[in-house]
C-alpha cells in the first residue's frame, strides 16, 4: 500500500546525486543552483552526507532550504549514502519537493554513488590541474553533469584544457564552469536540471558502477598490519590477487 503511494507521487521528484572531492565547492555550487531553481518556483530539498562533522546544514537552513543530515562516522561514506537513498527520497516526497539533491561526502575515488534513476553531478576543482580528471575514476566517468569550480584561479586556456581532459574520459557528459563565490554557472546548471526528463519510479534502482571490491579483515575492524593475519580477498602490489580463508 505504502509502496504504491510512493510510486505515484515520485513522478514529480527529480533526484540529483552530487559527488566530488572535499573542498571542491559542492555546497557553494548547490546553494547558488538552488536559488536559481527557486526562482522558477520549484521546491528544493537537500540531503547532506558527511564523514565526521558538518555545519553546512546551517548554510542551507539560513537559505530556508529543507535539509536532512547524515554522518557516516566510521562507515564508508559512499556505502552509507547508498544505503540511505530510499530514506532520502521518501523524506523529499514528504516535504513536497520537486527536486532533491543528495550531496555525498565522496571521499573514495573508487566509488560512484549514482543510481540509474538520478541526475549524476560531479563537482571538480579546476586548480587540481588537468592531470586530475583521469584519477577521479567512476565518480567522474559515470556522471551526467560535470561542474568545474574555482576557474577564476587559473587562465582561460587552463580552464579549456581542463574541460578537454574531462571530455576525453567522459564524452557524453555536459560540462559547466561554475564559481561558488560569485554564482557563475548556476543558472545554466539549474536550467539543465529543469529540462532533464524525469521518469523516476524509485521502485528498483540499481547503481551505475560496482562498489569497490574489498571484503577483508580490515573491513571488519582488524588493526594489525602484518600480512599473514589478513583474510578475504587480498591484492598484492604487483596486482596478484588471492583469496585467503575458508
Amino acid at each position, binding site marked *: 500500500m505504502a509502496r504504491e503511494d510512493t510510486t505515484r507521487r515520485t513522478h514529480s521528484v527529480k533526484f540529483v546525486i552530487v559527488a566530488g572531492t572535499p573542498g571542491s565547492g559542492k555546497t557553494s555550487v548547490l546553494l547558488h543552483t538552488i536559488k536559481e531553481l527557486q526562482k522558477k518556483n520549484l521546491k528544493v530539498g537537500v540531503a547532506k552526507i558527511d564523514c565526521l562533522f558538518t555545519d553546512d546544514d546551517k548554510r542551507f537552513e539560513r537559505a530556508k532550504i529543507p535539509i536532512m543530515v547524515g554522518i557516516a562516522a566510521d562507515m564508508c561514506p559512499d556505502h552509507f549514502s547508498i544505503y540511505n537513498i530510499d530514506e532520502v527520497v521518501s523524506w523529499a516526497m514528504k516535504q513536497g519537493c520537486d527536486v532533491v539533491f543528495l550531496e555525498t561526502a565522496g571521499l573514495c575515488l573508487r566509488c560512484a554513488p549514482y543510481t540509474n534513476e538520478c541526475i549524476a553531478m560531479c563537482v571538480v576543482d579546476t586548480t587540481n*590541474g588537468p592531470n586530475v580528471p583521469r584519477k577521479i575514476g567512476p565518480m567522474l566517468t559515470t556522471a551526467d553533469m560535470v561542474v568545474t569550480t574555482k576557474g577564476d584561479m587559473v587562465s*582561460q586556456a587552463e580552464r579549456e*584544457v581542463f574541460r*578537454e581532459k574531462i571530455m576525453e574520459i567522459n564524452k557524453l557528459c555536459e*560540462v559547466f564552469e561554475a564559481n561558488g563565490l*560569485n554564482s557563475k554557472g548556476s543558472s545554466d546548471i539549474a536550467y539543465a536540471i529543469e529540462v532533464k526528463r524525469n521518469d523516476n519510479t524509485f521502485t528498483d534502482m540499481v547503481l551505475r558502477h560496482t562498489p569497490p571490491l574489498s571484503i577483508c579483515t580490515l573491513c571488519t575492524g582488524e588493526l594489525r598490519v602484518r600480512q599473514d593475519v589478513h583474510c578475504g580477498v587480498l591484492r598484492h602490489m604487483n596486482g596478484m590477487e588471492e583469496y585467503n580463508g575458508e
Partner: protein
Amino acid sequence: MEIKSLEISGGIDKGGNREHIQWFSVPCGSIISIVGPTGSGKSTLINDIEQLANEDTTSLRKILINGDVPSPSVRNNPKNRVIAQLSQNMHFLTDMSVEEFLILHAKSRNKSPDIVEQVVSLTNTFCGEPIDKSMLLTLLSGGQTRSLMIADIALISQSPIVLIDEIENAGIRKREAINELIRFGKIVIIVTHDPTLALMAQKRVVMRNGGMERILNTSESEKKKLEEFTRLDNDLCGWREKIRQGELIA
C-alpha cells in the same frame, strides 16, 4: 557566429543600488577601456562579460551578443566560444610542458597542433628571457607566463571579443603584446591603469564602488595628449630596458 555588437545591461553596485549606466552597447570594431581605482569592480565587470552573465552573478548584469542572450553552447563549449580573456593570473597551475599544454588547448579550440612553434616564437617577442616548448609551465616566470598566455590568445583562442585585464603589470613588452591582441579582435575591452592604453580606446568606462559610473569619449585633445604620453612611455621603456640589461644610465 558573426559578432556585430556586445551589449551590457546594467545591474547593481556594491551597495545594492542600481549602477548609473544601465545600458552600454559596444559595436564591432571598438576598443573600450575600463578604468577606476583598485577595488572599484573593473575585473568583476570583465568577468561578467567573459562568463556572459545572465543576471546570475552578484552584479545582476546581463550580457548580450548582437542584442540577444547567447545560447548555452556559446556559453559553455570552447569550440563555439566567442570570447578570449587575458586575466590577471601570473602563474600556470598545470603540471605539463609548454608543448603538451598548447597541443591540448589547440584541440579544445579546434586548431591544428602544428601551431605550437608559432605560439612559442610569438611568446619570445614579448618576454625577456626566451622560453622553449619543452619547459614546464609551472617553472615559467610571471612575465614569461603572461607572454605565453597572450601568444596563446593571439594564435589559438583567436576569438572576436578580447578581454584584457591589466596587461601592463607583467613587465613584458606591452605595446607589441597589445598590438597582437587587437589585430584579430573585433571588440577589444581593456582594463588598465596605464594612460597610453586607456586613451587608445574610443571610449572608457569609469568604475566606482562596483558600478559603471560614467562613459567618456576620448576627445581630440586627449588624442593629442596620447601622442605625448606615448613618446614619454617609449623613452621610459627604453631606459627600463637599459637598466634591465645592466647598463649605466648617463
